[in-house]
């Protein structure tokens, strides 16, 4: 009657709930400010341009090559990072609901992903400006990056489903997740170019799921092509991820209300 699979499917169907919760999270933060959620865009824009100016000097790369690459990488990394770190706390942060009313549990990770998708959409305004500024050629192939966002969202949903179960049971795990994401940021070519690592320590890129997800999003928009190795890695990762999530959620589902 109420099992983990039913919970997941019903949560997807109750899109009105998680989309509203996600959207009101954003509104709440910016309700009393003049430009509203575009504060997100503005602060990201400042962040990107300052790093862009400094690092294009350090790496000795022309701005028109470096800035689009950095902007897309950072914007998507922010999406990845927030989804994972906030998603890991999805159950803990909603303990009051989980303990006080019969509610579908999987709506909470979905809420986190939806909220951050809205942030991503706002931040993409920056790329539009950059694309106009540096005259970046947008083609039909660029649309693949939307597919990239969807594939990552599906993956991060399963990932946070497992993570939020673990983090509800073991409270210090969230700190470990934060540290891992920090290291992952430096191990993923966002500030630096991936060609810098080619031929040496290939494994840093080959087995870094975040690298492949960033590639899925970034390459089509920069006029590049998605490598076959990325497609095959992501496919295998997705299947693996779903199996793990199903197993973890099945085991945890009836215990979550005790854990939170």
């Amino acid at each position, binding site marked *: *009657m*109420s099992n983990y699979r039913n919970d997941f499917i019903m949560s997807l169907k*109750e899109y*009105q*709930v998680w989309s*509203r*919760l996600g959207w*009101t999270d954003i*509104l*709440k933060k910016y*309700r009393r400010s003049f430009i509203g959620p575009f504060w997100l865009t503005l602060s990201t824009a400042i962040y990107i341009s300052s790093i862009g100016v400094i690092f294009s000097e350090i790496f000795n790369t022309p701005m028109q090559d470096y800035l689009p690459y950095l902007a897309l990488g950072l914007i998507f990394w922010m999406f990845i990072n927030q989804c994972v770190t906030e998603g890991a706390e999805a159950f803990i942060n909603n303990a*009051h*609901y*989980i*303990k*006080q*009313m*019969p*509610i579908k549990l999987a709506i909470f990770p979905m809420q986190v992903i939806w909220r951050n998708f809205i942030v991503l959409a706002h931040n993409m305004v920056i790329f539009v400006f950059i694309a106009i500024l540096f005259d970046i050629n947008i083609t039909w192939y660029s649309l693949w990056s939307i597919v990239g966002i969807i594939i990552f969202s599906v993956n991060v949903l399963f990932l946070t489903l497992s993570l939020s179960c*673990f983090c509800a*049971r*073991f*409270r*210090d*795990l969230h700190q*470990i997740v934060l540290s891992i994401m920090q290291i992952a940021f430096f191990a993923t070519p966002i500030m630096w170019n991936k060609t810098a690592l080619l031929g040496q320590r290939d494994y840093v890129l080959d087995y870094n799921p975040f690298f492949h997800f960033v590639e899925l999003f970034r390459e089509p928009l920069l006029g590049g092509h998605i490598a076959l190795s990325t497609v095959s890695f992501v496919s295998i990762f997705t299947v693996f991820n779903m199996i793990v999530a199903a197993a973890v959620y099945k085991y945890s589902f*009836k*215990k979550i*209300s*005790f*854990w939170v």
Partner: protein
Amino acid sequence: MSKIISLKNVSLDIPIYDGSNISIKKQLLSYATGGRLAMESKVCRVQALKNINIDINKGDRVALLGHNGAGKSTFLKLLSTIYHPTSGTININGEVSTLFEVGLGMDPEMNGIDNIITRGLLYGLKKNQIVAMIPEVVDFTELGEFINFPIRTYSNGMLLRLAFAISTIVKRDILLLDEIIGAGDASFMNKAEARINELVEASDVMVLASHSNEILKKMCNRGLVFRHGEIIFDSNIDESIDFYINHY
């Protein structure tokens, strides 16, 4: 009489997690060192409900009696599928609505209408259903123009009225209530009571936990007395209250 809720040999152990057993570092260390440390980190369990066998039929208005910690609230959480039994089986035919904590999930930054919509969605209503209900809910709260203000500007009384109105918008087959009696001015208390009665009328089964024998007597027709997680008495409401008073 048709069975709406049926519990067979249901027991519930609630694990208590504290300092060391919610830490993955300590868990891993205890595997590494074994023995004594592993013993320390064992999760302690409270047997909250023991061997519950009960059928609740259509038309039953069930009162839960018992001391604090006797298992009343836990029993309600079990019926609402917030908790799942450790052993035994529960069968529930019908949709459940709960009223455990009136102010749950109210957002101080949002206005009254937005709070109504969010809560309605959380209760499993569709957005268009809620929008259709809004005039009636607003009318009930008597908040007038204030409904468009952020609820952080409300007084306690206004908050209570809104919270109560929001909490009672869903009508379902099975109604579970836990200590719903709050403060408020006298005229509102009468309205609140009338609204609760409306909900109860619309439901097939109502289960109510309260410490007020007066309210239980007025609203219920059957009483269950809990002690240490077991149901020790099950009869009509008057006998149950007498039993409860005489034995405690």
